[in-house]
């Protein structure tokens, strides 16, 4: 179902402004993601009333009242099914779900698995700072092993979860990686993600100056490069997976993989095919006389 963006009114950054002051630490990667997200929405000419932004609970979730648009700020780990349910109810509204690596790869990891598998037509922005920030720096599943963290003075006993290999094993239809310090590139990535047919997974590497002392802003700035510079073919899944997984040297960013041939979950729902209206628009009382006949 095509999303009818209202392009008549001119949308500006002001429309997405909030009077609530930011509460992130100085140097937090969230500022970059926040700016790129607003820029992408403005450049796509999406009015604040046309979008739904859904936030998980974590440092990133404190963005919920620092930005315009209709927003929902729900439970830790559960943003994906909330956003998917909202999208199914009204597929005309673009829905962006935002979560951190703590929630998305621990408490809510099952939802991530089934979102990729279901190919819900939503965008998922992963704020990846490789730790639980809001609870003061505990190790997440993506924290490199051996790092001393709050509650793990000896480092964590578990191995680090290979997140990109994991995502690719689920046969995704859109995988991008970006760096919060490269706002122009992230803006372009987000625009493509929102326009994607199915589930768009956007892994944003970001600094956490308070608790992540290993992957700092400078480290990421040094390591990240844009795959556009190497003429990467985003249709080549094997190449994309290899690029995504190997971060030992440089880190590839940009659209790593995209497949527009797979229908979204909503498109696959037979009862919804050919309907112009959304489930939200169809709420009224229905006559069940026909169905009652089967019981007589």
């Amino acid at each position, binding site marked *: 179902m095509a999303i009818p963006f209202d392009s008549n009114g001119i949308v500006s950054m002001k429309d997405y402004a909030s009077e609530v002051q930011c509460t992130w630490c100085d140097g937090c990667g969230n500022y970059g993601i926040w700016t790129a997200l607003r820029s992408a929405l403005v450049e796509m000419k999406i009015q604040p009333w046309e979008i739904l932004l859904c936030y998980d609970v974590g440092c990133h979730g404190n963005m919920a009242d620092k930005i315009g648009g209709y*927003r*929902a700020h729900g439970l830790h780990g*559960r943003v994906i099914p909330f956003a998917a*349910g909202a999208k199914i*109810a009204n597929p005309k509204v673009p829905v962006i779900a935002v979560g951190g690596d703590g929630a998305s790869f621990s408490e809510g990891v099952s939802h991530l698995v089934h979102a990729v598998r279901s190919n819900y037509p939503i965008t998922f922005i992963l704020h990846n700072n490789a730790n639980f920030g809001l609870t003061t720096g505990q190790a997440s599943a993506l924290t490199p092993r051996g790092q001393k963290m709050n509650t793990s003075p000896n480092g964590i006993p578990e191995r680090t979860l290979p997140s990109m290999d994991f995502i690719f094993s689920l046969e995704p239809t859109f995988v991008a990686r970006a760096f919060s310090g490269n706002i122009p590139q992230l803006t372009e990535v987000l625009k493509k993600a929102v326009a994607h047919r199915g589930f768009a997974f956007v892994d944003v590497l970001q600094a956490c100056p308070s608790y992540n002392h290993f992957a700092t802003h400078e480290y990421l700035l040094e390591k990240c490069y844009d795959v556009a510079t190497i003429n990467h073919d985003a249709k080549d899944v094997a190449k994309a997976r290899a690029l995504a997984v190997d971060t030992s040297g440089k880190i590839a960013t940009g659209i790593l993989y995209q497949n527009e041939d797979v229908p979204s979950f909503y498109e696959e729902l037979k*009862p919804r095919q050919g309907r112009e209206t959304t489930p939200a628009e169809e709420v009224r009382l229905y006559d069940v006389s026909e169905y009652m006949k089967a019981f*007589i």
Partner: protein
Amino acid sequence: MTRVVLKIVGASGQGINSIGEVLAKGLKRSGYCVFGYREYPSLIKGGHASYQIDVSDERVGSSERKAEVLVSLNHHGLQQNLRDLKDGGVLIHSTAGWKFTPEDEVLLKERKIRVVLLPVDAILQKLKAKPILANVLIAAFVWKVLAKDRNELKTFVGERFAKKKDLLELNMRCIDEGFDFSDPNVGDVSVALPPAQEQWKKQMLLTGSQAMGLGAVHAGVRFYAGYPMTPSSPLLSYIAELQNQTGMAIKQAEDEITAAQMVSGGMLMGARSLTATSGGGFDLMGETLSLNGILENPTVFVLAQRPGPGTGLPTWTAQADLLMAVHMAHGEFPRCVMAAGDGGDAFHLMAEAFNIAEEFQLSVIYLSDKHLGEALYTQAPYDQSGTALRRGKLVTDPAELSKLKSSDRYDPSVSEGVSKRWLPGTKAPVFCAQGDEHNGQGDSIEGAENALQQTEKRLRKMEALQKSLPEPELLGAQDPEILLVSWGSNKTLIEDLLRDPALEGKKVGFLHYAYLWPLKTGRLMALAEKAKRTVLIEVNHQGQLGQLIRMECGLAITDRILKYDGRPFYYDELRERIVTILTSDVPGTKTVASKSRSTRSR
């Protein structure tokens, strides 16, 4: 009431449901009120299961413990269910060469039970028919025992196979074989049914789950998300079965948390969305329930009860999750709890659940149980003209939308605590559906004064909701000397009992609670004060409704009839227990600190 009970027993997967369905629907079509009740273990094949049909010319909504006709599809039933037969009953089985124990032989003789060996396998072999046709063959023989017309059954079965000519022919031959068979050792046996009544022929025969499903479709539910769990799954199955006709979006979610979150997202966008689960799944939904409390997001959860704790008795029944429904999840927030009592309620309460959820912007927990969900009710086609679509303060008109301010969404100053609500995607000032404590527009605010205002705003809805809910329905005597108090699926059973000679002339009234939270106690208090005896009837150990009543108004009901073995009350069982209480001298009801809560105007 004249009641004839048919019981079919055998292994799960042996076809007892098919026989039961043919007989239940056939008899209803023929002019009888039918109540169906199934028992089965938590497995797919094997185990011991039963399908019981209580048949009457009058309204019947309960099961008796003993049957006039018992059909046993295996030797296990012959061992285990012999004592389920009434004196003079008929036992039909197909286990060739079966030898009863000497004790059983004595029992059969004493009770004058007639045993018929129906050679099912031999007949099917003769017809070159597949084993599945045993169902219609056995049903035909039972039909004959009930002295019903052969062609009536043929017409009914014929409709089912109208499009499959080859099968139709074979089915008709099976009916003839069933009718023509006579056990040479016993001769023709018959069990008399009362005269058929026209009024039942055009009624429906459906399960509580199907009634709830029809109710959901009628109420405008356009999105259903669920995770399979007995006894909520039949609702999911029925709604899924209808999807190509209704156009409803259906999602079988990865877990109950997902289902709860999805319907919450769906409701935020304005689509009536439903999920159903049982106790264990509802445990998982608790955090989402709390979230919807602070989001003021209207949601409806069906909680189909079964005995816990843990996995408990997965395929049996209980009313033991009432306190959970009322109290579950962290924080203080308003909610409504209701329970369906029969095939009518199951349908009509669904629209009401969504109306209340949207009018008061809160979660409604709709309780059912295994008994309600799987019992077969004879039910008049629903009168749909009385249903209203009430969406409360939902703003959809463009002119009204343009007048809104973002801070209207959670404006704490509104009367009754219900503020304006509008949907993401509509052209209006935006807000944040905020799970943190928040101000009017959903900005996270941690101030003390704001926390007071928002908490009070949300909980004011409870007072308004309580005023708007109806008092419990009083059935039977309107000036009762004996007052029975109950809820949920006990309703049809107690209604049957009100007409029983054992209780007739005793001025027995029955107060049925469909709305359980917030609890209305005014009518109860007035009636209990005048009644000689007040008796609480529940399918749980603690008398959970009794606990809520005492908590809310101080009335302690000490005459309690409770059951917690996974089975519903049977008709004759409950009658005995009521009579026992009525003939005992122990003083019943007493009031403890009854006036201390009167300021809350119940």
